[in-house]
Each structure stands twice: as C-alpha cells, then as structure tokens.
C-alpha cells in the first residue's frame, strides 16, 4: 500500500500535478519517526530499523552505492554510520538513534537502487538494538517531519 502511494506521488510530482494543497509531494509514513537529517526509524520493541526517507532519496538522485557498517558496530544518535553515493556525490547517513548494529541490508550492495524505489520497505539500511529508548522522543513524528520538509524546500 505504501509502495503504491509512493508510486502515485512520484508520478504526480513528475507530471507536476499537486497531490495536496502543498507543493510538497514526497511520501511520509505515519507510523515512523524521523530525524532532521532525513532518516526514518521504525521501532519494534528494543529493535529499530532505519533508512532514508523518500524526500532524501528524491534529493539525492539515483543511488549507485551504499556503504554499510560492520555488524556489531555501535552507532550514536546524530553520528554518521555509512554513506550513499549518487550522481558522483557521496552523502553521509547519520544514525537517528544510538545502539548496536545487529543486521545490515546486504541486498543493497547488489541493488543500491532499492533505496530510491522503496525507501521505506526494501530499501531499509540497518537494524540496531537500541541502547537508549528515550532518544526516540527527540525525533519528529510524521506531521512535524512533513512540515520540516516543506520549510526546507521553500528555502530554495
């Protein structure tokens, strides 16, 4: 369902039809939390999955390479843990929460494009074991994140 929504809004923005009142046409899912460096987090007990948002992948362009961290490595909120390369630009990905890396999406090594086509589902990047559940409070919910993206886009 999310995939179809994503596809629809992508087509809409390509054809320049407004999806809603706002000019902002990327997808923001309601049950996720967001960091201001455009990563999303899905909390599942004390495990968290994250990746980059639709807004981020749209601004990056076609991803050709994803640098994944090693398993067992610890990450801290706001610190970089990997990178994506697109259009000759490597962009750091920052961790929205702190924890220990328990799983990485190896599929991205072969198909980095999944980050573009399915940023919230198949394009997930890593899963961590949370070290501090309280940190999630510092993240934005979907409404706040939509507003944040709107403000950023308006600056241009």
């Amino acid at each position, binding site marked *: 369902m999310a995939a179809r929504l994503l596809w629809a809004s992508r087509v809409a923005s390509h054809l320049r039809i407004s999806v809603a009142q706002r000019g902002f046409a990327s997808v923001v899912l309601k049950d996720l939390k967001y960091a201001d460096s455009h990563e999303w987090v899905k909390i599942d007990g004390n495990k968290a999955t994250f990746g980059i948002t639709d807004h981020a992948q749209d601004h990056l362009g076609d991803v050709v390479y994803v640098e994944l961290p090693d398993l067992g490595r610890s990450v801290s909120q706001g610190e970089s843990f990997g990178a994506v390369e697109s*259009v000759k630009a490597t962009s*750091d990905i920052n961790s929205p929460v702190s924890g220990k890396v328990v799983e990485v999406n190896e599929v991205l090594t072969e198909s980095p494009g999944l980050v573009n086509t399915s940023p919230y589902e198949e394009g997930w990047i890593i899963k961590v074991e949370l070290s501090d559940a309280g940190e999630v409070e510092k993240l934005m919910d979907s409404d706040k994140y939509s507003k944040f993206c709107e403000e950023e886009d308006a600056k241009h």
Partner: protein
Amino acid sequence: MVGFKNRFMLMEVYLDPEKDLLGEGTPVILTKLNLSEAIKDSILVNFGECGLASCLGSFHVAYVNPVTKLCIVRSSRDEHRRVWSAMTLVRSVGNCPVVFNLLDISGCIRACRDAALKCETEKFNQSGKGLSEEEIREMNRKMRTPRTLEVWKLGTVNYLKSLKLQDKLVSERKANRIPDTLLSLQHPPTYTLGKRRTDHNLLIPEAELKSIGAELHYTQRGGDITFHGPHQPILYPILSLRSIGFGARSYVEALERSMIEFSSLYGVKARAGNKCETGVWVGDRKIGAIGVRISSGITCHGLAFNIDPDMKYFEHIVPCGIADKEVTSLRRETDAQLPSEEVIHEQLVTCLAKVFSYDDVVVKEDPSAILNTLEDDD
C-alpha cells in the same frame, strides 16, 4: 584624518515594463552581483581596460533593494565621475533594458543611507495599497543576511594538503564559524579514486606512477578515477547545502551549470551528462569532471575543468570509469585566444557564484598562510 576619499552614489534603476526583454526568461531580479557586473562591463566598454582597472579599486555595490529598485554604489572620489557616467550608459542588466538615474551623492555612507531611507519611505507611501505577495517575499529575502561567498585563491597545492584544508574548513563551516567558502586551485599531476575504490580503472601499476611524475590518492568523494594536473582549474566549494536549500542532485546539477556557463564564454556548447555520466561534455567528449562529498550537509571536493592539461596522463586510466568516451579540453574545443590562468580561474569562480546566486563574492587575503600552518598540525 581621512586619507582616502570615497563617494557614495544613490541610484534608482528604472526597469521599463513597456520595452521588450532582450532575451529569454523572466525579468531579472536586481542583485549586487548582476548590477556590479553590468556597471563593470559598461566601464570596460566606455573607458577601456585602463579605465576599468583604475575604478575597480574602490568600486563596490553596497546596497541593492530589488523592490524599490534603489542601489548605493561606492567609488573613489577621483573616479566617481567615470563610474557615474558609465552607470548612465548602462543599457541592460541581464535581459532587462534599464536606465540608471542618480538621486544623491555624498562622501559618507550615512548620508547616503538617510537619503535612501527617505526615498524608500516616499515610495511605500505612494504605492498606497501596499505590496503584493511577491514583493513582500522579496523584502523578507532582502532582510535576511546577504549570502557571501569567500574565495581562497591557492595556486598549486599538493593533494593531501588540500584534503587536510578541506577537512578543517568543513568542520569550521559546520560550526558556522566561516561563511560559504570556495577554494580555487590546481594540483600537481595526481590520480584520485572515489569511495568505491575503483582502482581497476588505473591502467598502469601503482609502482610506475612515480616515474611519470604522478601521485595516487584514495578519497571519500563520489565518482570514479580521475586525473588532476597543471592547467586544469579546480574548485572545491565548502557550502552548507541546508542554507542554500539544495539536495545532492540539485547541487551537482548546479556545478554542471557553472561549467556549462563558463564554457559558453568561449563559444563552446557544453552539456550536462546523461544518466550515470555526471559531468560536463562537449558532444561525446568529457571536458569537466565532478566528484563531491557531503557530510552533515556540508560539501567538499568539487569540480575540475580541463583548460589545457597534458592529455597523455589520461591515457593511463579509464577516466571516470567510462571506457568508450574521450576526454577533451578547452584548448582542443576552441580556437579562441585563451587569457591568463588567473583570469580563467576568476571567470570560473564568477560563473559558479552566479549560478548559486550569491549576493557578494569576497576574496580572502593571503590564504596560503593557512596552508603553511596545516603542515605543523600533523
């Protein structure tokens, strides 16, 4: 007490709505940069290079208000009549026919500012209904601090040193201790690889590099293998993408546009690359390369444009990993007389500043001093 005297001229710029635009696009919005370019061009045309050189020292567009169309221009007292007449002779700014009218002239900025304030208040009172949405947005944009680009002209710099300098500047920019900065330099013969470490695209063994006088470096930037060397100007913009409102893709596209704009100065029709072929091409030949790193929204590395590098060095690599396409240079693409390297670097910088809509470009005094301190930090 005051040894050096200036004159501040308050000018009103009339944009004639009846007249047709001279070119494509919407009417130009007045900025310090496009006004100063138009005035400098007029001085050059009417007073020659000598006239321009003598005016440039103190010439500065101090204030521009695109809504009321007022601007304050500073000039030295000795040259102000020249600048004034050149301004009167300006026919267009960008694609818009304009006429300049002098409203006030004074020896200090304060008096000029007071006159400007008075004039603008009159205009707002006259306009009655108040400002349109568009104009209010413009005013708010003016109220914000003007965007300045600080340019460091560094000459030829060893690659590792430039990496260290960039690291330092990126953290300074992140902490907001410096404005958007642009490094303008060249490297001694150097091959560099990107994050993907595609060293299979280096066609000679690493051991042989020394014999051809080149170094090899692995970097964190995007992109494949490339060569840097003399007669290839390089620009490393250290910018905060968030304050410009760009993402990675739009940033890289703007870098491409800067190089395309620069090529057009010499009549060379360059174009942006197709998908997966980022860079600037003339036909099927690559003339400009891009490789960028973005961390926490601050950019480093940047672009390289071939003016007249030793093309033999490119034979030892598969440039940018694209096997069946040639590499070319400005020298090869045009018969035009090329000016000195310093002028070329300046033109490239100006094109970038224009594409990124900077209000002001400031050249840093003696940047090489910083380079020397980097050695000690090791």
